[in-house]
């Protein structure tokens, strides 16, 4: 490397000061101005994370929020060159280092994850959408699903209540987060394990409800084909209205 060790160390000292605020000795530096760099860098990090997690920000008291952002700023080496992806690293840092336990906020990780997934779905690269017809037979035609979605499971129902209350309802919640084809808006819905199976199968390949019935019946131990068929019909009709299903194919 053409850069001297001394110059490299000076550059790292300045960057380190920005992250920690701990005093550094750098030749020629005007100490009464150095704090501006820390302030500017911190503002970028803080505002980026705050914009990504508005619900978390509103939920946590100011001192807890500032504590988490400061911990992240000081201890985490930000890896992405794209600052809008930094909130994902924030989620990983908080969840890997057990801050939810430390702050006694059991639902914290789920809420951060959910808020990040909304961004991820909103911005996920455009996928190729296969040809489909908008009219068809919901029971017998193969169904084409909107690929711009993610499935996730939560331990706390932060998608329908505040973080403190959600902590009282520990369980298993399956959430489908999707991007509407026409508007690009992101929506979500809570679904069952059976619905998760249906969505996962449709993501692999178009299937009709009739084709899916045997596997679902076997996997979930549901022998009443008629009731199961009606249930799937209603579910698929609902997600067709919501643009999660786009239409039909042969």
């Amino acid at each position, binding site marked *: *490397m*053409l*850069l*001297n060790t001394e*110059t*490299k160390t*000076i*550059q*790292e000292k*300045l*960057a*380190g000061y*920005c*992250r920690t605020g701990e005093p550094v000795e*750098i*030749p*020629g*530096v*005007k100490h009464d*101005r*150095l704090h*501006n*760099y820390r302030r*500017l*860098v911190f503002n*970028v*990090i803080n505002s*980026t994370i705050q914009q990504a997690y508005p619900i978390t920000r509103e939920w946590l008291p100011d001192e807890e929020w500032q504590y988490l952002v400061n911990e992240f700023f000081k201890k*985490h*080496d*930000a*890896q*992405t*060159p*794209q*600052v*809008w992806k*930094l909130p994902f690293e924030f989620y990983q840092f908080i969840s890997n280092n057990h801050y939810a336990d430390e702050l006694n906020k059991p639902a914290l990780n789920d809420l951060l994850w959910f808020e990040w997934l909304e961004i991820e779905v*909103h*911005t*996920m*690269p*455009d*996928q190729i959408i296969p040809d489909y017809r908008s009219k068809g037979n919901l029971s017998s035609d193969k169904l084409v699903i909107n690929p*711009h979605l993610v499935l996730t499971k939560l331990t706390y129902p932060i998608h329908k209540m505040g973080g403190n209350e959600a902590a009282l309802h520990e369980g298993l919640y399956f959430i489908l987060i999707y*991007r509407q084809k026409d*508007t*690009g*808006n992101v929506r979500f819905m809570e679904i069952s394990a059976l619905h998760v199976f249906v969505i996962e199968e449709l993501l692999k390949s178009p299937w009709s409800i009739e084709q899916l019935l045997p596997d679902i019946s076997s996997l979930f131990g549901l022998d009443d084909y008629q009731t199961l068929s009606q249930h799937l019909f209603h579910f698929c009709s609902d997600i067709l209205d919501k643009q999660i299903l786009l239409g039909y194919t042969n």
Partner: protein
Amino acid sequence: MKTSIGIGFRRDFANEFLTNQKFTPDFIEFAPENWMNMGGYWKNILDQVAERFPVTCHGLSLSIGSPDELDWSFLKELKQFLKHYQVEIYSEHLSYTKAANAHLYDLLPVPFRLDAINHIVNRIRQVQDYLERPLVLENVSYYTPVAAEMDEITFIDEIVNQSDCHLLLDVNNVYVNAFNHGYDAREFIRQMPLNKVAYIHMAGHEKVAPDLIIDTHGQAIIDPVYELFDYTLSLMQPVPVLLERDFNIPETDALIMEMKQLKTIATKHWEVHHATKH
């Protein structure tokens, strides 16, 4: 050559680019990092805007002055992005944003030192070779010298001349630095390698203390910066000029007025003057 006045494309007023018939910049500029690998609503908007206006890109995370290694996977994605949007000019900052394996997402000043020049020149050459285009580097504002062994103008001049990169002359940054460090802005401009300037940035700033200005891009351009711009153009051949406004976005009419004022000054030097010569 027709004077070309552009503006930074920002999400805060993205729809104005598509719907406001009075808002007609000659070109737009955006940070590739804010749009790469993105689909959905914003990609759709970007595609429409890029279809309507010529595009330049002004990067944030290349970190050409960094002590860390160049990020080749980032450069690979960047190259594809620049090709996809047929970007005419790709510029970056003569600063660093990453050190000790951590991005900081703001522009830190590189020590004005000989080894830093050699290091940066070598990196510029690598980037230019890989991207197959000249790199255009902006003179950045800075608030304190850092272990300097030479003055700023020598540092910039050496890098531009040795690397054969181009210069993005930020006139506001020259004004800010001249104020913050007590030198003559016009003298500084005169010493810049003006024949290597690919385009010009103009922006507003904020005075946060009697002796300190921060380059915020959150205010209108002030008259002394217009005057410095006027002086600068008197020394230069025509290049595109870009208005930067990143925060505290005003009504679009105010931005239109600023672009109009830039165009009036540019036209005075570059159209009338050249017409008279011929």
